[in-house]
């Protein structure tokens, strides 16, 4: 890769407890090019979200980075003073969380929350920020945006709230968006809409995306490359086709084998052998 936007080198994060130390991220290295989408997959506790938090330097004690570098646009984020980091966080790198209902401020109008992102980073203020908020809601395809800016989060559906989160994330034209399970809490039809939106916006703004998910379907639809995380370590990385069709590492294989609808060439592993579904009347035979 010529010039990666994000270059994570040998990142190690530990959580020190009174009795034991847990290595949450273990010597992980990966790159993301401008405009590229890297899917970071793994099961719960594998260290995917901790990786995201480490990149944004949002780790809470007792978690801390003990080794590695995180180069973003050529600068090592781990060496930056907090003041400079604040200029990057939310502006050059932004974050979309899984649960928009807990990530949004419940007592603040959504328009004000978008405007806040602009004001905090000195991009716009007052009336201009509010106008940009409407534009951003239009950009994330919220109908009747001029009226919706005055809504509170609870007045919006789950899918709409996630669109607001995306609007906030895009407000300052970031180069990299970290999306941590952005559609996991959504119904599948809403998920499809949000993924379509992310895909369009990605092309429109040339966004790089670090997409954290456990869903290989989302990976297949969105990612250019995939990194598989297991117990804090990246066990395999590669182009999405290679990972899905010809995984090399045993863990990737076993993970894919558990996904209904993949399960290797011998077909879906979970289908019960030969259940005769044709037997007997079964429908709603009653009509009174």
């Amino acid at each position, binding site marked *: 890769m010529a010039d990666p936007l994000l270059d994570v080198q040998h990142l190690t994060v530990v959580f020190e407890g009174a009795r034991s130390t847990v290595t949450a991220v273990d010597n992980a290295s990966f790159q993301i090019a401008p405009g590229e989408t890297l899917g970071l997959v793994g099961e719960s506790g594998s260290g995917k979200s901790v990786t995201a938090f480490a990149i944004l330097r949002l780790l809470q004690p007792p978690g801390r980075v003990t080794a590695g570098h995180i180069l973003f646009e050529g600068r090592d984020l781990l060496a930056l003073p907090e003041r400079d980091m604040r200029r990057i966080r939310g502006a050059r790198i932004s974050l979309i969380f899984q649960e928009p209902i807990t990530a949004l401020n419940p007592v603040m109008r959504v328009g004000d929350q978008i405007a806040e992102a602009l004001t905090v980073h000195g991009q716009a203020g007052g009336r201009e920020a509010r106008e940009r908020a409407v534009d951003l809601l239009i950009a994330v395809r919220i109908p009747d945006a001029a009226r919706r800016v005055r809504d509170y989060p609870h007045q919006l559906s789950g899918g709409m709230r996630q669109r607001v989160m995306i609007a906030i994330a895009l407000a300052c034209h970031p180069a990299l968006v970290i999306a941590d399970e952005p559609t996991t809490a959504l119904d599948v039809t809403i998920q*499809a809409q949000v993924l379509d939106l992310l895909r369009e916006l990605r092309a429109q703004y040339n966004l790089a995306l670090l997409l954290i998910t456990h869903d290989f*379907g989302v990976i297949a639809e969105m990612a250019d490359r995939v990194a598989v995380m297991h117990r804090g370590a990246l066990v395999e990385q590669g182009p999405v086709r290679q990972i899905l069709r010809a995984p090399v590492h045993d863990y990737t294989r076993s993970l894919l084998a558990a996904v209904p609808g993949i399960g290797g060439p011998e077909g879906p592993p979970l289908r019960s052998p030969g259940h005769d*579904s044709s037997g007997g009347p079964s429908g709603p035979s009653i009509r009174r």
Partner: protein
Amino acid sequence: MTPLLEVRHLVKHFVRKQGLWRPPSIVKAVDDVSFGIQAGEMFGLVGESGSGKSTTGRCILRLVEASSGEVLFRGENVLQFSRPRMRRARRDMQIVFQDPYSSLNPRMRAGDIVEEPLIIHKLGSKTERRGQVADLFNLVGLDRDHLTRYPHEFSGGQRQRIGIARALALNPALIIADEAVSALDVSIQAQVVRLMLDLRERLKLTYLFIAHDLRLVEHICNRVAVMYLGRLVEMGDTRTLFANPTHPYTRALLSAVPVLDPDATRQRIPLDPASFDREAPLREIGTSHWAAV
């Protein structure tokens, strides 16, 4: 052949009071739902949040009381049962809940959680019950030394095994699995699903598998019914229905499921609510295939 479970014209309306002066609004959570499940089936009930699939499951067990309709279990309408009769009937119909973190009493040891239904139904002596619980632990793949542990000491998959063991304690014929594996990681999910399929063979169980994960339902259920805003919009053999979805909602739903092939062409079918009649009843459109069109 009489179905093991037959739901006829099930209706559950929730009345929402909106203050003193405004008329209450009625939410039709389940709106005239009918289906039958044969013994030994794995019947999938799918839908998105708010479709009424969980409420349907709860109405069958009378965890919420249906507004009208019939639930025939082995030909008898359980909605007419007296309380003691219903309690006995629940031995045959058990539920496994979605969230293994909140559905197990955190202050009880795993062994006691599994034993509790036996105590409630006054079955066996203390020694007999202990023996049964040990057998159940063995059956669902838990160790004997897990008996005295508390729920927080278990992983999500193990907790769901405890929930299944508890559901199996009374030797039921029907298990209602309400998003029973939705909260689990995919590898753990596969293990629990295999356990459920294995138990179906060994114990001759019948499942009503309530889920939102269409890929999973496609691979484990032999029949499936699709629910949308309180109504069944399509029902049929899993293979037939997935190969030939007919109702506009089913088509939109299936087209929204992410395709696992990165080279597949995506064709999302948007849902146009004006394209179908919400009140239309299911009618037979093919062999073992019904749709509300």
